């Protein structure tokens, strides 16, 4: 009995007059969202239809008989075993390593007094603003000079270099805002900066790291331009390169083409869904408020 009374009060508070403005807004947003998701629905439906069904039915009719063999067919013809493996290896090495490097550098720049600290920070920040697609030729020349064309390090090292600046920028903003009291006591007790970084700063920055992990996973997984230049042997291709070639060869096999798109996109969507609850909050604490 006692539990019911306050709830009624809550209801009365939470359900004020229906605001017509909000209702119209809601209708607009939902309509827009349906338009926005339409291409994704189209891919999902087409990926599950046989070619005959693609031709016979309209685009937004759900598949009648689910053609799973589109996926196995695309997997085999598109050389997905190789490209998928390459993408996984490159992403799984690059993303954690890059976050580690960035977090270490950001900590030092934010919490250790350095004579050129501010200049170094600007130097990193500068890199976050440069479109590297501008420099494909010299990157090729450099990696070629090291003899690393068509190797994993040859693509991971440039990926690291172009991922670091933005992450340093975000993490620096976050570390800078951490109250002094948290680290000072440990430092006075004789703990080293490395320990303070590992024991105090890494644990509290997990939400930011999760947000950066999403961004970095997605951009590494999807990267096309540099891979195009640095990975020329098709045994070293990543998924985006494989998809591009698949499109060129089998563009009229709509079911398989869409299955190929779905398989390329799916892992990134999965990682996003797993970590997305950290996403907006992580970005807020770092970039915008920082």
């Amino acid at each position, binding site marked *: 009995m006692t539990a019911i009374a306050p709830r009624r009060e809550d209801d009365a508070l939470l359900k004020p007059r229906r605001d017509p403005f909000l209702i119209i807004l809601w209708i607009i947003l939902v309509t827009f969202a349906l338009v926005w998701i339409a291409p994704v629905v189209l891919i999902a439906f087409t990926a599950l239809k046989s070619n005959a069904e693609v031709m016979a039915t309209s685009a937004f009719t759900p598949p009648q008989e689910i053609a799973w063999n589109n996926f196995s067919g695309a997997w085999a013809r598109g050389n997905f075993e190789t490209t998928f493996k390459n993408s996984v290896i490159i992403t799984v090495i690059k993303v954690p390593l890059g976050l580690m490097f960035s977090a270490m550098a950001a900590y030092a720049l934010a919490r250790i007094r350095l004579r050129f600290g501010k200049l170094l920070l600007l130097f990193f920040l500068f890199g976050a603003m440069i479109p590297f697609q501008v420099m494909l030729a*010299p990157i090729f020349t450099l990696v070629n000079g090291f003899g690393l064309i068509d190797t994993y390090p040859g693509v991971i090292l440039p990926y690291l270099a172009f991922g670091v600046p933005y992450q340093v920028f975000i993490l620096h903003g976050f570390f800078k805002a951490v109250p002094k009291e948290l680290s000072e006591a440990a430092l006075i007790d004789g703990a080293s900066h490395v320990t303070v970084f590992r024991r105090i700063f890494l644990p509290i920055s997990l939400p930011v790291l999760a947000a950066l992990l999403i961004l970095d996973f997605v951009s590494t997984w999807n990267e096309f331009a540099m891979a195009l230049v640095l990975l020329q042997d098709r045994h070293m291709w990543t998924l985006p390169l494989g998809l591009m070639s698949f499109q060129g060869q089998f563009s009229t096999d709509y079911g398989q083409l869409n299955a190929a798109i779905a398989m390329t996109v799916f892992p990134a969507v999965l990682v996003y869904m797993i970590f997305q609850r950290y996403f907006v909050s992580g970005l807020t604490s770092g970039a915008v408020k920082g």
Partner: protein
Amino acid sequence: MFNSKFMQSSRTQALLLIGPALAVYATFAIWPMIEVVFLSFQQWNGLDPHREWVGLANYQYILTNDAVFWVALRNTITWTILAVIFPPTIGLLLALGLNQQLFGRVPMRAIYYLPVIIAPIAVATIWRWMYDPFFGLFNQVLTSLSLQSLISDWLGDREIALYSMFVAYTWQYVGFSMVLFLAGLQSVDRSLVEAARIDGASRWQVFRHVTLPALRVTLAIVLVLSTISSLKAFDIVYGMTGGGPAQSTQMLALWAFMQSMQIFDFGRGSAISVILLLVTLTIVVPYLRWSQRDEGAGE
């Protein structure tokens, strides 16, 4: 407060912590940026051990003889202006809407953000297929609405191909601006908004005088990031039109790539890169100065 030995060791530690990031960044990001300037003064096919120094010849050729360069420059500028206006505006409107207490706002946010996660090259593949003049979704929908007069060869018509591509680009990046604006909106003081509403301010007045000023920093970040990501539009052009038809959708980033990696004229390709780099710097450097000044004032 600290003795000098401790300071020294903390400097060593700083070096250890910054070292890996700095080394990889300087070698693989900064050095190519310097190298591209050298390359732009040389004639080189990418393989020959000998690189000939030709001074400004590459620039001269591009600016006076390369008609495609001017098309690419005009397209890049058009693209950048569109990219700074449309995705951020739509993103801001969505963020303002989805910041309200609305039913289903969390799944709606996810839907608008979903295209950001999709590989640009996949976006190109999807939209190329939707734009197909015979089997594509757009012309099917127009036919079923009896609007046959509007049916076009979306990517094959030189007049509209660039704008067709831009629609796909907008579809992909609106969610990116939206998320940044949503994050920025969290810093708007709720009590201030409520106080203004109680005092009888209209929604527009609240937006104009409370919300918008609080979004100033976010706005700057979104505009700069939008500019930069538009300048590096590469994947989507490569995947949708390859610069065609007849180079009408060519862009600077793609043209630089083609000159170097397909025509094997590294000198001319690099000269185009340097021009694009200079364009970028004229936007980035003022922003960096502004943001540093801002930070200085805050301290």
